[in-house]
C-alpha cells in the first residue's frame, strides 16, 4: 500500500486466542438476627468495596399527594444520624474516602456506598447510623425539600429529562404513580415535611425487608464480625413487604411535541411497554434491541448517524419498571428509542427510523448480526464486571427484581442459545411501527407540520 509515499507491512487480521474462563461471581448469603439479608462476594484486587442496600420503599408506597417523599427520605437518612449532625456525617464519610448515593425508584429504594477496603468497617458504621438512627431534623428536611424545588426547573430544562416525564404521562393512566415524575412535582414536594418523612421511614424501612450487597477485596475482613458490629445494630419489627400494583399502558400510535421554541435539536423518545426479566423471551429481547440500537453499528445508527449524519447517536434500550416474584403476576419494562437530531432533520429522521423498523419486520435480522450481538454481549462481561461496583449493582438489581442469585450467570448461557429468528421476533414485537408513542421535545413551529405530513398518528403540542 502506498499513500503519499507511506508504506508499511500488512498482515492478515489475527485470529482470536484461547478464551480464558470467566464466570459472573456467585455470591454467598447470610441473614442477620433482625432479618436483614446480605449477599457478599470476594473480588481479589478490588480495593474499592461496593455496598448496595436495597430498601423496600418503592414509589408506589408513597402516601397519596406526597410524590417524591421516597427520594427525600433516603437522602435525608444521611443528613444527621446517630451522634452526627448533617455536616459532621458528610465529613466523617468523606474522611473514609467514601461516596454515598441514595435514590428511590419503582422497584425500591437504594443506598450505594463505595469505600476503600481498609475503611469499610468505619463506613458501614456510618451507614448503620443512617439506617437505624436518622435524625430527620426539620431544618435538614426543609433544606432537602427546597433544594429539590430548585432542581425541578433545572431538570425540566433538560430535553432528555423533559421527554422522559412526558412519555410516562402519555403511556400510563393518570391515577398510577408510574405516570408521574419519580421525584415528584413542585406541588407534591412542597407538601413534604420532617414529620411525613419520619412517618414514611417508620412505615417502610426495616431490616427484615432490606438486603445488603457487599462486593470487593475482603481479604483480612471478618465480614460476619463487621456486619454484627454495624448493620446488626439496626433492629425493628418485621413489617410486611410493600405491594406494587401491575402496570398498564396506552400505546396507540401518536406523537406529542413538547414545545421548546428556538431548540437547535429535537429530542426523540419513542416508547411502549414490554416484559420484565422473568419473561422467557428476555434474552431474545436484549439481543434484538442491541441489533436495533445498541451501538453505532446497529441498524438505527447505521442509517441515522453513519449514513445521514442526523444525530450524534440514537439508542434502543430496555428499563425494568416492575418485577414481582414470578408467581405474583406480570412484570413490565419500558422499551425505548432515544436520541436527538438537528431540528431540520426531525421529520426525515423519524421517517428513516420507521423505515428501519419496517425493514426489520419484513426481512428480519441476519445471522451475522445476531452472532455479533451475542459475541459482544457475552464476551464483554469480564470487562463490564471488572470492578466491584457493577457486580454489586447487578446483584442488587437481581434482589430488587426478585430474580435468583445465579440469574446473570445463566443469562449469558441463555443469550448464547438464542436464535436469529427468536431475536428478530422479540425486536419486531417490541417495536411495532404503529404502536409507539413518540415524544418530541423541540421547536413546534418548525417541526409540527413536517411531522404531521408523515402520517404516523395524531400530533399534539404541549408547552414545555
Amino acid at each position, binding site marked *: *500500500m502506498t*499513500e*503519499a509515499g*507511506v508504506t*508499511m*507491512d*500488512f*498482515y492478515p*487480521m489475527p485470529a*482470536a*486466542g484461547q478464551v*480464558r*474462563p*470467566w464466570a459472573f461471581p456467585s455470591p454467598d448469603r447470610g441473614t442477620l438476627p433482625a432479618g436483614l439479608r446480605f449477599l457478599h462476594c470476594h473480588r481479589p*484486587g478490588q*480495593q*474499592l468495596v461496593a455496598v448496595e442496600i436495597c430498601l423496600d420503599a418503592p414509589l408506589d408506597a408513597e402516601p397519596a399527594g406526597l*410524590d417524591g417523599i421516597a427520594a427525600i427520605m433516603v437522602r435525608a437518612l444521611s443528613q444527621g444520624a446517630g451522634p452526627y449532625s448533617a*455536616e459532621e456525617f*458528610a*465529613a466523617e*464519610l*468523606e*474522611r473514609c*474516602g467514601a461516596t454515598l448515593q441514595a435514590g428511590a425508584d419503582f422497584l425500591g429504594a437504594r443506598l450505594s456506598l463505595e*469505600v*476503600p*477496603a*481498609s475503611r469499610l468497617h468505619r463506613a458501614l458504621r456510618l451507614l448503620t447510623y443512617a439506617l437505624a438512627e436518622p435524625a430527620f431534623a426539620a431544618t435538614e428536611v426543609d*433544606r432537602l425539600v427546597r*433544594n429539590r424545588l430548585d432542581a425541578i*426547573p433545572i431538570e425540566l430544562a*433538560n430535553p432528555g429529562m*423533559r421527554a*422522559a*416525564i412526558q412519555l410516562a404521562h402519555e403511556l400510563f393512566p393518570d391515577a398510577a404513580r408510574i405516570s408521574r*415524575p*419519580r*421525584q*415528584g412535582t*413542585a*406541588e*407534591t*414536594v*412542597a407538601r413534604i415535611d420532617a414529620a411525613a418523612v419520619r412517618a414514611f421511614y417508620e412505615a417502610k424501612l426495616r431490616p427484615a425487608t432490606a438486603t445488603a450487597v457487599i462486593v470487593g477485596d475482603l481479604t483480612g475482613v471478618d465480614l460476619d464480625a463487621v456486619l454484627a458490629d454495624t448493620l446488626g445494630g439496626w433492629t425493628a419489627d418485621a413489617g410486611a413487604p410493600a405491594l406494587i400494583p401491575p402496570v398498564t399502558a396506552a400505546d396507540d400510535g401518536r406523537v406529542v411535541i413538547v414545545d421548546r421554541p*428556538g431548540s*437547535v*435539536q429535537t429530542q426523540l423518545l419513542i416508547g411502549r411497554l414490554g416484559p420484565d426479566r422473568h419473561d422467557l423471551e428476555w434474552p431474545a429481547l436484549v439481543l434484538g434491541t442491541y441489533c436495533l440500537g445498541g*451501538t453505532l*453499528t446497529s441498524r438505527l445508527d447505521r442509517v441515522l448517524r453513519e449514513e445521514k*449524519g442526523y444525530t*450524534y447517536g440514537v439508542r434502543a434500550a430496555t428499563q425494568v419498571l416492575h418485577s414481582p416474584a414470578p408467581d405474583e403476576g406480570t412484570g413490565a419494562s419500558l422499551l425505548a428509542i432515544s436520541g*436527538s437530531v*438537528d431540528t431540520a432533520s426531525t421529520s426525515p429522521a423519524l421517517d428513516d427510523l420507521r423505515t428501519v423498523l419496517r425493514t426489520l419486520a419484513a426481512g428480519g435480522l441476519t445471522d451475522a448480526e445476531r452472532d*455479533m450481538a451475542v459475541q*459482544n454481549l457475552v*464476551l*464483554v462481561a*469480564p470487562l463490564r464486571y*471488572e470492578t466491584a461496583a457493577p457486580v454489586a449493582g447487578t446483584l442488587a438489581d437481581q434482589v430488587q427484581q426478585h430474580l435468583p442469585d445465579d440469574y446473570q450467570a445463566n443469562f449469558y448461557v441463555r443469550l448464547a442459545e438464542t436464535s436469529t429468528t427468536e431475536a428478530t421476533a422479540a425486536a419486531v414485537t417490541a417495536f411495532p411501527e404503529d404502536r409507539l408513542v413518540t415524544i418530541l421535545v423541540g421547536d413546534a413551529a418548525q417541526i409540527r407540520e413536517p411531522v404531521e405530513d408523515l402520517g404516523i398518528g395524531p400530533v399534539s403540542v404541549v408547552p414545555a
Partner: protein
Amino acid sequence: MGNPPANSTGTAGLTATEHRLGNGLRLVLSEDHLTPVAAVCVWYDVGSRHEVAGRTGLAHLFEHLMFQGSAQVKGNGHFELVQGAGGSLNGTTSFERTNYFESMPAHQLELALWLEADRMGSLLAALDEESLQNQRDVVKNERRQRYDNVPYGTAFERLIALAYPEPNPYHHTPIGSMADLDAATLADAQSFFRANYAPNNAVLSIVGDIDPEQTLAWAEKYFGSIPERGGKMPLRSAELPDIIGAQIREVVREEVPARALMAAYRLPEDGTRECDAADLAATVLGNGMSSRLYNRLVRHDRTAISADFGLMRLVGAPSLGWMDVKASGGTEIPQVEAAIDEELARFAADGPTPEELERAQAQLEREWLDRLGPVAGRADELCRYAVLFGDPQLAFSAVSRILDISAAEVQAVAAARIRPDNRAVLVYEPTSQSGTEQDEAQQNGTGQ
C-alpha cells in the same frame, strides 16, 4: 494522622515496563492477571491546542475519522470487529492530546493491536470526502446535543475563552466552532494526519492479562514497519502570566432555569507540587458534601442549589480552576458572590484545617484508586504520564504525591492564585421568570 491509608497494596503494587520501537513508538506494558481482560490505549501528542486559526475542532473531527476505516478495515469495521470480539472502544480529544482505546477480552488483544496499527499506518488509504461530510454532520450534532441545546451548555467554552485570551492556543475548546467545522476540507484532514499521526508522536500502553514477551512481539510485528515521520507543526506559545491581573466579568442573559455564578482561575501547571496543592484546595473548597462552599451556600445560607470547585490539570498552560454555583430561588447574584468571596478570602488566609486536609486527601486517594483500578483507566494514565511528562511510572506515585502535600502548601497556593484578580467570572441571568420564583404553572416535576 488518624486516617489509615486506603490500602497497602493498591497503586503501590503496580508496575510497568517501557520499550521503544525503531520508529520511535513508545510502549508501556503493565501485567495484571486478576481478570482475563486487556486494555490497549494509544495517545497521540496532538490536541486542540495544536489547531490553527480558522480550523478549530479539527483534532476532534479527525478523531471521528479514525473510526471510518483504513487500508485493511472497511467502513465501520473498527467498531464492528472490536465489539464483535466482546470489546469496547472509543476515542476522545482534549486540549493536549487525542486518545484511542480498546478494552478487550484477553484472548482478543492481538486484534486490537492489528486495528490500531492499521489506522496509524494507513488511514489515508481509506479517508474520503464522503466520510468527512458525514462525520462533520455527526460532530455538528454532537456540538448541538452537548453544548448548544442545553442550559449553560456553552459556559465552559466562554470561561476558557476568558481565562486564556487570544491568541493563546487554549483559547478555544476541542469541539470547535460550527463555522470552522464547515470550513474543514479533506486536504486539512490529510495534512493533519501526516503531521501528527506518526509512531514517533504516540505512546501505546497495554495493561492487563498479557504475556509481555508475546505482546512486545505483536507490537513489533504490527507497528514496527510504520515509518517514523517528521513535519509536526511547532506548538504556539501558551505562556500566560500566573495571574490574570484584574477580574474579568461577562454577564449572559439567556433562557436558563436558574441564576448562576461561574468562575475560572488560572492555577499551577500539572506536574508541580503546587498543582497537587491546588487540587487539594479545590477539593476542600468545592468537592463533596462537606466542602466549604457547600456548607456555606447550600447548607447554611441556603442561597445555592449546588456549589462546586474543580481542577482541570493542564501541562502546557496554567491549569484551570473552575467554580460553578447555581443560585437558589430568588437569590440575587451579589448575595451569593459576597458569601463566596468571604469563604475564599478566609481559606486563602488560614488554609485548610487538619481535618479538611485529611478528608480531601482521602477523597482524592479514592478517585485515584478508581482511576487506576480498572485496566482501561490504568492504560490511559500510563499514556498520560508518558506523553505529557516522559515518565509513565509517575502514574503509580500520583497518590503518594497528593498525600505528601502539607496544609501550608495548600494555603500558599490558595493565597497566590484563588483571588479576585485571578478570575474570569461568568454570570447567568435568566431572561424568563421561571427560574427565579417557584413556577406554579409547572405541572410536571422530574427526575427520570
